[in-house]
């Protein structure tokens, strides 16, 4: 017969420790995780869940929900922002599959700098040079598509320069790449010596 004085088994103690984990709590957004099972979180599912929240609210709550969705999309990757706000489509299992296929298609044949941008690295440093990528879609006019992508790449260089606490004196758009789905990517560069610390 099992004695009650023996206490819980090591397995029981472990499962109780895992039951509840305190998370950062401040400013009214209190969170407590109950670990029942660790199902894998897929980015598309995460965004779909967040968007379903947005669709249920109006007015001020909707405004806040929209920013929360934006934060989620950016956290997953900048490429997810336009997907998060896509109108009239719900991310069902079927559309998730299609989107995954489209994403793979987008990456096919893409230069390495495009792959970096898709994965969320909008700007980076290589030695004394800073590179940044601008991404634009849904513009039919090819000339406008290129110039907008170039301008966004330059704007992202500005952000990088701003992080270096400096201002940009000059930049160059080096290359463009258009994905099969019509998204235009532009790569811009600036030398660190062209960032002034005024």
């Amino acid at each position, binding site marked *: 017969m099992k004695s009650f004085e023996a206490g819980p088994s090591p397995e029981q103690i472990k499962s109780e420790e895992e039951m509840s984990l305190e998370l950062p709590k401040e400013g009214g957004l209190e*969170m407590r995780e109950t670990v029942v099972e660790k199902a894998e979180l897929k980015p598309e599912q995460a965004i779909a869940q967040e968007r379903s929240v947005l669709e249920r609210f109006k007015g001020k709550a909707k405004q806040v929900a929209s920013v929360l969705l934006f934060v989620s999309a950016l956290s997953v990757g900048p490429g997810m922002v336009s997907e998060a706000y896509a109108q009239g489509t719900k991310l069902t299992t079927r559309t998730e599959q299609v989107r995954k296929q489209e994403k793979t298609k987008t990456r096919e044949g893409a230069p390495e700098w495009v792959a970096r941008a898709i994965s969320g690295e909008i700007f980076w440093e290589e030695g004394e040079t800073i590179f940044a990528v601008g991404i634009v879609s849904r513009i039919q006019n090819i000339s406008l598509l290129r110039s907008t992508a170039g301008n966004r790449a330059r704007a992202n260089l500005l952000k990088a320069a701003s992080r270096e606490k400096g201002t940009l004196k000059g930049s160059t758009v080096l290359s463009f790449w258009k994905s099969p789905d019509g998204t235009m990517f532009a790569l811009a560069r600036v030398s660190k010596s062209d960032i002034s610390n005024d």
Partner: protein
Amino acid sequence: MDTNFQKIKELIQESTLLPTEREDLLLLFTKANDQDLEPTLKLFIEDSSWIRKINENYKAKRAALATGNQALWQKIIQEEEAQLKELEH
């Protein structure tokens, strides 16, 4: 003319967030196209307490995404819904 990012940056730097939190939150917004930052800027201007709330929300989401924890993400979404329902009243 100041960009939305620059305005958000000023608001975050004036906030009570820790320097590392400011840096992390700014890094998140550097990934966005400037025009997409407008609703966030509007929210921060209307009520600067949202900077801290959004930061806490972002930290929790980042933790969930980094670990791929579906249960944690679900919990965050439920908490968000509760907060949003309060705003409706």
